[in-house]
């Protein structure tokens, strides 16, 4: 979870069995225009109850991932099968999904499922780790071409990338002779996202290192990003005293005690 807070994504290589991945690929190819958006807001448990697309997201491992991030009974937001034809040399521009999302605590997740082997030649999706805290308007970032630290998703069939809803991303050209699919599913939480995952190792000192790892593109704003991660970690762990490297403790220090010259001591101002 600390890695998700810092990077804005988690990767699960080959988590979906090959047979099931193949079935999804065939389903997407056969039915590329199947309905999306129409059931937004419904409980996800009521979506794809008799469909291979539902089968992949109801595997116990995948359900565990979903529950750890957005909790039980998430809402279905929308899905979209992204189809990139062979030989399509144009790339999508950088964007973050949806409009300006001003939430600083709760978040949706987007599951990027790759049903087939996706080498660099085929794309796949380019993401920018650590971009999920940025408040931007959808495709206003389309002027950007390359960003240090950008990560092309290159993976084997059956791999799943789970991202924070606000991560910057764009589809890459498909220079191969094969049709490429990526199925994206967005889910909303219906509970407060507090301690939803296995928190047995919450006191592990490695968490601090994971949270504070710098992203190579943030420059002088790197410390602001660290503060944002600390704030999100406080929320997710329900621990308002959590800090790293004293960043927040220092700037939150506004003492309420007064120094008394005559008594040579301090007293609490009860009126404040």
């Amino acid at each position, binding site marked *: 979870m600390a890695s998700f807070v810092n990077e804005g994504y988690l990767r699960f290589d080959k988590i979906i069995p090959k047979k099931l991945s193949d079935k999804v690929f065939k389903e997407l190819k056969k039915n590329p225009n199947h309905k999306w958006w129409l059931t937004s807001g419904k409980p996800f448990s009521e979506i794809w109850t008799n469909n291979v697309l539902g089968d992949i997201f109801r595997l116990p491992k995948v359900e565990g991932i979903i529950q750890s991030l957005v909790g039980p009974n998430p809402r279905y937001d929308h899905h979209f099968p992204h189809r990139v034809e062979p030989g399509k*040399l*144009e*790339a*999508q*521009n*950088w964007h973050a999904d949806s409009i300006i999302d001003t939430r600083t605590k709760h978040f949706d997740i987007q599951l990027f499922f790759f049903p087939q082997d996706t080498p660099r030649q085929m794309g796949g999706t*380019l993401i920018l780790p650590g971009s999920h*805290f*940025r*408040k*931007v308007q959808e495709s*206003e*970032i389309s*002027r*950007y*071409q*390359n*960003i*240090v630290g*950008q990560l*092309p998703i290159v993976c084997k069939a059956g791999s799943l990338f789970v991202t924070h809803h606000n991560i910057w991303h*764009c589809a*890459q*050209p498909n220079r191969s002779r094969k049709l490429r699919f990526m199925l994206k599913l967005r889910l909303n939480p219906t509970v407060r996202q507090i301690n939803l995952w296995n928190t047995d190792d919450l006191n592990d000192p490695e968490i601090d290192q994971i949270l504070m790892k710098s992203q*190579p*593109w*943030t*420059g*002088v*704003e790197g410390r*602001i*990003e660290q*503060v*944002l991660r600390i*704030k999100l970690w406080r929320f997710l762990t329900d621990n308002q005293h959590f800090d790293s490297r004293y960043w927040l403790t220092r700037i939150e220090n506004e003492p309420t005690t007064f120094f008394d010259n005559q008594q040579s001591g301090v007293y609490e101002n009860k009126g404040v």
Partner: protein
Amino acid sequence: MSKNNTEVSPLKQKILILYSGGSALDSEIVAWSFFDATENKKMVTGDSDEPPYESVFDAMKDGWRVIQISPIQSFQPGTEYSTGYLKFEHVLEKITPTDG
């Protein structure tokens, strides 16, 4: 074509946008974009992992003319600890004669 009917090579613009990690022109490049009107190529995201220059200053030494520098902006109250677009955007140009 000029007034006296002599051929003049049209001048076209190359725009290089460099985003630096700090406000100084010699700070490291964290992102970049290239728009080349001499070749009429569309920009392709993700086509390179290495910045073309280490800094804006290095690009200037290579003949790029700086035509815009991001101002250093004060924070609006309440936004001190929020982040958005890449902060230090520098627009550079080269003017190149072309065949038309």
